[in-house]
């Protein structure tokens, strides 16, 4: 490892601009003549639009135009798509209702846009949006998931009978039945995976510019994947052809999945720029973010796990209902299916698994991928089941897990996945040691003396990252390939630019990607720039989500570096009259192994560009590209242990210890990895203890639409985390990496809930475990103790 190469704790290159306020976000972009968009949004959860009168709004000061769904349809702007086809178990395709960027006839959630005003100032646009008059016919709102699928409930889309989008299954239900028939013990649980609002620090924004001269379009947008945005906007929404559309995602302040999707506002800003003749900017306020960013999770699940007399797992049955909200968002269909049920083997050998998933429409905000996307839901099912089973069987949670761990690799689960490498016991042991698991009994007694209920809980998660290979995801219904591309440009004086299709919105790519180049070419990281987020600069790419940028994005860079290195060695061998095989590149020098012959790196780079003395037939230049399509998913795994103290009088839960032992394969920058784990755990703890999304079940109004009511975790809600890593090398990519961006959010919720249920001696609590819920169960526990 060099001081700045792979494995070094290099300080983040991008932090200087972020912490000095020099970041450049979409809202910082200004173009001449720029005006502002305000969206008119539905105040109702469900209503028909009898008529829209925009005449008063059009007459307001500063207004360039007021556009509705009627104009949008007249211009042939396509409805929003869902990019992953899921078929129900009866073979029928998913039942997708139309999702126009501006609602024309019906609105189905509070906040759905039905018109846009473009005006000279933001205030003028908002004033005019309020002057649009709509004759609404209010319809009953369908909010509750169980109510939505009841026979006779109002149907929200004509396509989806009983509001069911698909009724899908994975695994072998007959095999599961056979396994359960011979079970010595069955553990059953009903679980709620609560709906979350993503809450990226930077709200979504878009700036659409139509250039009448060249008929080119430019879209600045808060996107995790600008190339996919360009592809989808061109291919499906008919706004602009691909060669006439440039999409730029500059600095983006957090995504967590919510900025993967192409939203109505981005499409409308681009289209409205052409319609009104001015560049159109829109920046969401926080209320719009709460109402319209795709939400996460929202499952209800019944799960059963069967054990034999020796406590070996025999089978698993899972029945899940997933709330999709009012419309299918871009990747919504894949989340509770191929990103969820495929992980239901956990870290364990389970011979028979069957999962059934129904996706359901309700009059709520659309739901899609959010940090972890399906994998936190799967982990919650598995790890709540295992911990509960251990308590029921009277064995230690660690021993029950040890008995059932997968120990030989590759391991084919009954639910598609082939685990390539792992050592689950190593993570378990590391976490238990870091947590002083053995000393817990003592700590519990000591806490009792202070009037506190102390509990400990464990979660051994596995997840799948770097979704791929493309042919495999294509066969499962994905509309895109999931490879990544890179281009490495060595400049004539030896500095390097890496163009990547990955997109950094908090992941530190400018540092870690540079570390890889530094490792390979022996250059300092300040000589290496990472270029991303602009479709006019970067050839193509699939963006950043699913913890894929290391395992997939850096693998593409790795391949491009192979080519650069090979060509550089040829040039160096030619210049030093040596054999190509003897050339070594290190510390900014190119050497002939075993001799004192050497050249500075810059001589090779410059030589490539002057072309004065190249090997016969070689093209000048030193610039290579590569596409990398992985051979398999990667499988990060680990063990999290949470310890809580509950104040039984108030129900307040304090997390007194949180330990994470993760196996992410090879690490590029351990400090960056720790940061990702910290953030993920904070979000997971938020889900477990605090973050609740409340809709009024009568009116469908989002009650938690501000930070006054939606509880985000704060620094003082969290302890100082004890994080460490174990390492098994991922065989599926050249760097041996697995991915670390989501693990914290995936592994932590069950650890927290297992700790709380341990402290309370009551397994019934649902997420978020708010103080009142905990207080009620603590009262019961106290009464139980008094009775004993």
């Amino acid at each position, binding site marked *: 490892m060099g001081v700045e190469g792979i494995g070094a704790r290099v300080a983040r290159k991008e932090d200087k601009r972020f912490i000095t306020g020099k970041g450049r976000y979409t809202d910082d972009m200004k173009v001449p003549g720029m005006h502002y968009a305000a969206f008119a949004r539905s105040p109702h959860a469900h209503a028909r639009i009898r008529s829209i009168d925009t005449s008063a709004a059009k007459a307001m000061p500063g207004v360039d135009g007021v556009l509705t769904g009627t104009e949008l349809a007249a211009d042939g702007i396509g409805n929003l798509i869902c990019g992953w086809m899921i078929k129900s178990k009866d073979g029928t395709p998913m039942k997708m209702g139309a999702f126009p960027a501006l609602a024309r006839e019906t609105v189905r959630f509070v906040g759905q846009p039905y018109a846009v005003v473009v005006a000279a100032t933001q205030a003028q646009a908002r004033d005019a949006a309020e002057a649009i008059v709509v004759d609404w016919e209010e319809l009953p709102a369908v909010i509750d998931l169980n109510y939505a699928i009841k026979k006779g409930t109002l149907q929200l889309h004509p396509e989806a009978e009983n509001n069911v989008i698909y009724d899908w299954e994975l695994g072998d239900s007959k095999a599961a039945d056979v396994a359960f028939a011979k079970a010595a013990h069955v553990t059953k649980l009903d679980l709620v995976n609560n709906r979350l609002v993503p809450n990226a620090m930077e709200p979504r924004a878009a700036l659409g510019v139509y250039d009448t001269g060249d008929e080119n379009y430019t879209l600045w947008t808060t996107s995790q994947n600008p190339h996919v945005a360009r592809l989808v906007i061109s291919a499906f929404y008919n706004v602009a052809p691909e060669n006439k559309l440039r999409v730029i995602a500059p600095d983006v302040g957090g995504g967590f999945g919510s900025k993967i999707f192409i939203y109505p506002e981005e499409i409308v800003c681009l289209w409205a720029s052409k319609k009104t003749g001015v560049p159109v900017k829109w920046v969401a306020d926080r209320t719009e973010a709460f109402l319209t960013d795709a939400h996460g999770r929202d499952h209800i699940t019944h799960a059963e796990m069967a054990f034999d007399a020796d406590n070996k797992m025999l089978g698993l049955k899972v029945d899940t209902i997933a709330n999709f909200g009012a419309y299918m968002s871009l990747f919504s269909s894949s989340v509770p299916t191929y990103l969820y049920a495929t992980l239901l083997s956990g870290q364990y050998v389970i011979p028979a698994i069957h999962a059934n998933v129904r996706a359901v429409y309700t009059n709520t905000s659309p739901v899609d991928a959010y940090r972890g996307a399906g994998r936190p839901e799967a982990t919650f099912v598995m790890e709540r089941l295992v911990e509960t089973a251990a308590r029921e069987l009277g064995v230690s949670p660690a021993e029950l897990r040890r008995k059932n761990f997968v120990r030989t690799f590759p391991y084919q689960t009954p639910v598609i996945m082939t685990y390539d490498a792992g050592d689950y016991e190593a993570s378990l042991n590391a976490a238990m040691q870091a947590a002083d698991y053995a000393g817990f009994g003592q700590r519990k007694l000591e806490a009792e003396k202070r009037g506190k209920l102390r509990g400990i809980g464990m979660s051994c998660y596995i997840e799948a990252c770097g979704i791929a290979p493309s042919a495999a995801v294509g066969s499962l219904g994905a509309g895109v390939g999931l490879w990544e591309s890179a281009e490495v440009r060595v400049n004539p004086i030896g500095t390097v630019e890496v163009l990547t299709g990955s997109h950094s919105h908090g992941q530190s790519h400018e540092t870690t990607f540079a570390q890889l180049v530094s490792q390979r070419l022996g250059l300092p990281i300040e000589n290496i720039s990472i270029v991303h987020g602009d479709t006019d600069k970067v050839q193509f790419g699939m963006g950043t989500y699913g913890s894929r940028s290391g395992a997939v994005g850096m693998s593409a860079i790795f391949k491009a570096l192979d080519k650069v290195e090979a060509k550089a060695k040829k040039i160096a061998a030619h210049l030093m009259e040596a054999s190509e095989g003897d050339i070594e590149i290190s510390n900014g020098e190119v050497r002939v192994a075993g001799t004192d012959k050497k050249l500075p790196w810059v001589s090779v780079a410059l030589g490539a560009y002057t072309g004065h003395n190249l090997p016969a037939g070689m093209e000048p230049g030193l610039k290579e590209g590569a596409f990398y399509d992985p051979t398999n998913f990667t499988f990060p795994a680990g063990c999290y242990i949470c310890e809580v103290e509950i104040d039984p009088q*108030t129900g307040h839960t304090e997390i007194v210890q949180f330990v994470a032992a993760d196996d992410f394969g090879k690490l590029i920058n351990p400090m960056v990895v720790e940061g990702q784990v910290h953030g993920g755990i904070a979000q997971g703890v938020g889900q477990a203890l605090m973050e609740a999304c409340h809709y009024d079940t009568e009116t469908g109004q989002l009650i938690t639409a501000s930070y006054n009511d939606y509880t985000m975790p704060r620094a003082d809600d969290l302890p100082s985390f004890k994080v460490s890593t174990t390492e098994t090398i991922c065989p599926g990519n050249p760097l041996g990496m697995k991915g670390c961006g989501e693990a914290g959010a995936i592994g932590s919720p069950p650890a927290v809930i297992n700790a709380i249920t341990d402290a309370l001696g009551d397994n019934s609590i649902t997420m978020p475990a708010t*103080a009142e819920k905990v207080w*009620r169960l603590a009262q019961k526990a106290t009464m139980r103790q008094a009775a004993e």
Partner: protein
Amino acid sequence: MYETTYHRPKSLAEAASLFSSSGDATYISGGHTLLPTLKARLAQPANLIDLRHVPELKGLQVTGDTVTIGAATTHREVAMSADVKKAIPTLAALAGSIGDPAVRHLGTMGGSVANNDPAADYPAAVLALAATVSTNKRQIAADQYFTGLYSTSLEEGEILTKVAFKAPAQSGYAKFRNPASHYPMAGVFVAKHKDGSVRVAVTGAGNNGVFRWKAAEEALAKNFSADALKGLTVDKAGMMGDIHGSAEYRANLVAVMARRAMENLGKLTM
């Protein structure tokens, strides 16, 4: 936010005359309730009159057993004042527990007391410390000042100028915070005054705003110790209920916070 005209009067008289002459005006003094309301376009005053820079409203002084705080004094100034810390340590601690540092540097005592948010901290101190509220027109005793949710006996245009708190013999303040907003879900201020009387004021929990818990006062007047509160409860019928806590839960919190305030006299407990 709708368009509004911002005024920064330099005297109390100017503030009052601006209000009466401008027709549609609202005072602002920190704005932690008003600004979010304006940003959400839920209010649209044509004029905003900022009281934070009116010299007559600034400053704090301790004379004898009275701590007088000017309306435009920030929470931070109260929290950091050595004089207040010495005279009524619980009051300084209460001010230091409001919101976060940014809020405490902008928010003012007068803004909080005039707004009378049912979950604000200051109203509990005003009631428990038998304070006298002064305005540009008169003086109002604490017991006559609070009249319900966001409602006080201040008349249209009347400006709260200062509040005189009585330094008690002993006091304590305990609160349980709303996890999202950090406003108290139940905050209980207990004070034993030098004349032997006891006041217990509850904020955050009551469905009609801050209130005195008379049963607790009587019990503590006989025996000023946490034990005196044993078994004492408030009726949940008078409590607020929302997504963060039912009326029953808030009733429990009131009892628990009252006990904790008594167990930790001279400081803030949360």
